[in-house]
């Protein structure tokens, strides 16, 4: 256990120094700054106002860019160390593969989760100073969503990282996964729905398999559906489930995806040639 924390700690320190981490933090911090500069908290559009509106915009942008950020930066974690022979040296010390792998996962999780979370907290604190009311329900839900979003894509990234032998290949696959998940939200599904060949239930089931769609719908689930501009799939889903169940599902399901993929990645990592 203490070796797991050691690996996590070292990975964290290494990440914090890395250029990608600086850019990553700047992007999410900058997003928040931009929202404030643009005066989003003050405008009254479509029934949202103040911080809720800002948080909603933040989460909607985050749903699109966080996955690709996590995938690109994490997918090279194991495969990159293998490519550059770092793994060959680091694993020549008596450290269990289990602790090494999960330590890396844990360290990476903190690196990817903290900046997006902190950006949101900074926004809320700043909003309070401006006299806005804190939408606690939305804040808690979005914290949960950011957590489960980070888990899901981190798990997928580690899976790819141990599956693929070279880091360039890993990068390519990561990009592909992101595009596919992105393309399968509403747009593609609306098409299917319009063609009327498949039942609505089936389309919604497919939509819900995609964690990105789950996040998208969950992000607006606390708001009154009448007021939001939501895709048809999202509308059906919110109509179908009770709010409580859907919120729970939207947080649990991606976490499970993350764990399953990370665990599959571990099996591959520990059972095949290491270098």
């Amino acid at each position, binding site marked *: 256990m203490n070796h797991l924390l050691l690996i996590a700690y070292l990975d964290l320190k*290494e990440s914090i*120094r890395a250029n990608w981490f600086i850019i990553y933090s700047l992007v999410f911090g900058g997003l928040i700054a931009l929202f404030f500069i643009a005066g989003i908290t003050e405008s009254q559009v479509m029934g949202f106002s103040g911080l809720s509106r800002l948080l909603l915009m933040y989460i909607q942008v985050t749903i699109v860019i966080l996955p690709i950020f996590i995938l690109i930066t994490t997918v090279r974690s194991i495969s990159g160390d293998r490519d550059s022979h770092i793994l*060959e040296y*680091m*694993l*020549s010390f008596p*450290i269990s*593969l289990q602790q090494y792998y999960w330590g890396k996962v844990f360290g990476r999780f903190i690196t990817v989760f903290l900046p997006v979370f902190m950006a949101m907290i900074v926004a809320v604190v700043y909003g309070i100073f401006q006299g806005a009311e804190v939408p606690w329900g939305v804040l808690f839900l979005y914290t949960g969503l950011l957590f489960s979003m980070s888990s899901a894509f981190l798990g997928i990234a580690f899976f790819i990282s141990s599956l693929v032998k070279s880091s360039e290949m890993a990068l390519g696959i990561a990009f592909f996964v992101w595009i596919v998940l992105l393309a399968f939200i509403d747009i593609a599904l609306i098409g299917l729905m319009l063609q009327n060949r498949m039942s609505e239930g089936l389309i919604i089931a497919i939509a819900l398999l995609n964690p990105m769609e789950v996040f998208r719908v969950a992000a607006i689930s606390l708001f009154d559906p009448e007021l939001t501009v939501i895709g048809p799939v999202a509308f059906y889903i919110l109509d179908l489930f009770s709010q409580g169940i859907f919120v729970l599902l939207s947080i649990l399901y991606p976490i499970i995806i993350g764990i399953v993929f990370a665990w599959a990645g571990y099996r591959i990592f520990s059972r095949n040639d290491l270098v």
Partner: protein
Amino acid sequence: MIVLNRLSKIFGKTRSLDDVSITLHRGDAIALMGANGAGKTTLVRLILGYYHPSSGTVRIEGRDPIKERMNILDQVSFVPQLPPPIKLSLKELMTYICKSSGVDEARIVHYANEMKLDIAPNLHKSFFKLSGGMKQKLLIAISLAKESRIMIYDEPTANLDPKARDDFYRLLRENEQDKLALFVTHRIEEVASLVNRKIYMDLGKVVSDEIC
């Protein structure tokens, strides 16, 4: 004692190691030689438990290095062919090694000094920013500080200046008693006075094995 029994490793169509059976004893200091691509590094990686053999077995003190990697690696020091571009600082790297292997940091510093590498001014520098020779010196210092019963060096002197090579061989001479030392090398004259056994490989096979 390391026992390789009918060991083969195949990558795709390349037979990197082909039915090798050798036994290396405690007290042996072995020079492992052979042309580029002969399979030396592959052999070392099998001993370290990195590769799963395509056929045959590796046993170290009767144990499987894959199934019991912690026990085995506890007794092994290894310096790779090329120092990897580790991004940790020297301090962090030493923390990793000391915590994972129970090495005393002062011993690393001691051997680094013996290798004429001054750690203190570089402590917070990334390992990969050291010069090639400095990296190798540090890895050598770590390998000696670890006090292992099995020492494996995959051409560790490639980037060292002549003076550093002398230091390295002197330190080895002081430290090799009662150990098993395996040197992968292309320059037999350098290690000639250290070794008591020479193994030549070619195309994945052991072609000669002399005691001297």
